């Protein structure tokens, strides 16, 4: 691989562009491929196969050839509501996983840059904050404030926009009350039941890093189910 190609790969990765690296295993030539374009030179005759790898989000050697395809897909967007202590540990865990995190918290003293370096922190109420984030059915929401004023609008937005994972922190009682409010707001019972509440898998721990670990474990598990 040429140094120039490596630099280009790193640039594409940091700008969250989807791309593939094509490598001719016989002569060592490599190229960067963007989906929807025509592969260059010696790779041009494998256009269909390359596109197939892209669609299935897989890496591998094209059958009956010496061409290796490695695809890079966009990270999964995770929106955390509540720039609280648990969020700091979530950010740490997510660093080594392919998640892109944004944090929403209207309370300025929580949502400081010093508490969350390198993370997009939106210091606004959820309704306004969601105008700044592009979301779809591959987005996840983790609501951590257990304050209905802040969590509820975010949960409603996530339900309406069919996020694949929605979790909300709080005790069983807190969650029952939350479900009640969502029912009164007109959400169907199966929509409400799709919310993971109390959030996280049962690990038994009560400390902030332990709760963060149980949330991230549930998120990874649900990501593989989708």
């Amino acid at each position, binding site marked *: 691989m*040429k140094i120039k190609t490596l630099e280009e790969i790193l640039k594409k990765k940091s700008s969250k562009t989807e791309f593939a690296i094509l490598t001719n295993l016989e002569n*060592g030539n490599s190229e960067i491929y963007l989906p929807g374009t025509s592969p260059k030179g010696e790779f041009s005759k494998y256009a269909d196969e390359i596109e197939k790898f892209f669609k299935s989000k897989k890496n591998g050697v094209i059958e009956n050839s010496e061409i290796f395809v490695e695809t890079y897909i966009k990270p999964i967007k995770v929106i955390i509501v509540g720039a609280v202590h648990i969020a700091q540990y979530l950010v740490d865990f997510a660093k080594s996983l*392919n998640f892109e995190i944004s944090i929403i918290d209207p309370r300025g003293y929580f949502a400081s840059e010093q508490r969350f370096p390198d993370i997009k922190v939106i210091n606004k109420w959820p309704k306004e904050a969601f105008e700044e984030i592009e979301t779809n059915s591959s987005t996840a929401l983790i609501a951590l404030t257990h304050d209905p004023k802040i969590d509820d609008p975010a949960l409603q937005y996530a339900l309406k926009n069919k996020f694949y994972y929605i979790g909300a922190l709080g005790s069983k009682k807190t969650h029952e009350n939350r479900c009640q409010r969502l029912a009164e707001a007109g959400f169907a019972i199966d929509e409400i039941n799709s919310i993971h509440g109390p959030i996280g898998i049962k690990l038994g721990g009560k400390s902030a890093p332990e709760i963060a670990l149980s949330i991230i474990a549930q998120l990874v598990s649900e990501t593989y189910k989708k």
Partner: protein
Amino acid sequence: MKNSFDEKILDEAQDWINANQKVVLATVIQTWGSSPRQVGSRMIVNEKGDFSGSVSGGCVESAVVSECLSLIKDNKPCKKIEFKVSNESAWEVGLACGGEIAVYIEQIH
């Protein structure tokens, strides 16, 4: 979720290059049976034999390092290496898990 951990390896490769080191990139290109690391898993090796990342669960890394060092010494651009449990040197570099992997090594130049 794919490419999660190894994403950092390419960044590290660039750091090593910026520090004037010779870098060989090793990538898992094929797997058969049960193998610990998926296709696309990466490892980098410099001319001193320092390495970062992984292509298996520790089973074949030492063999990959020596292959990478030979590549630098012979100044060859790339090589494909296959590891099977039935290798003659199975005790030394075989995959204990019974899987097979193909690793592609290439110089970054």
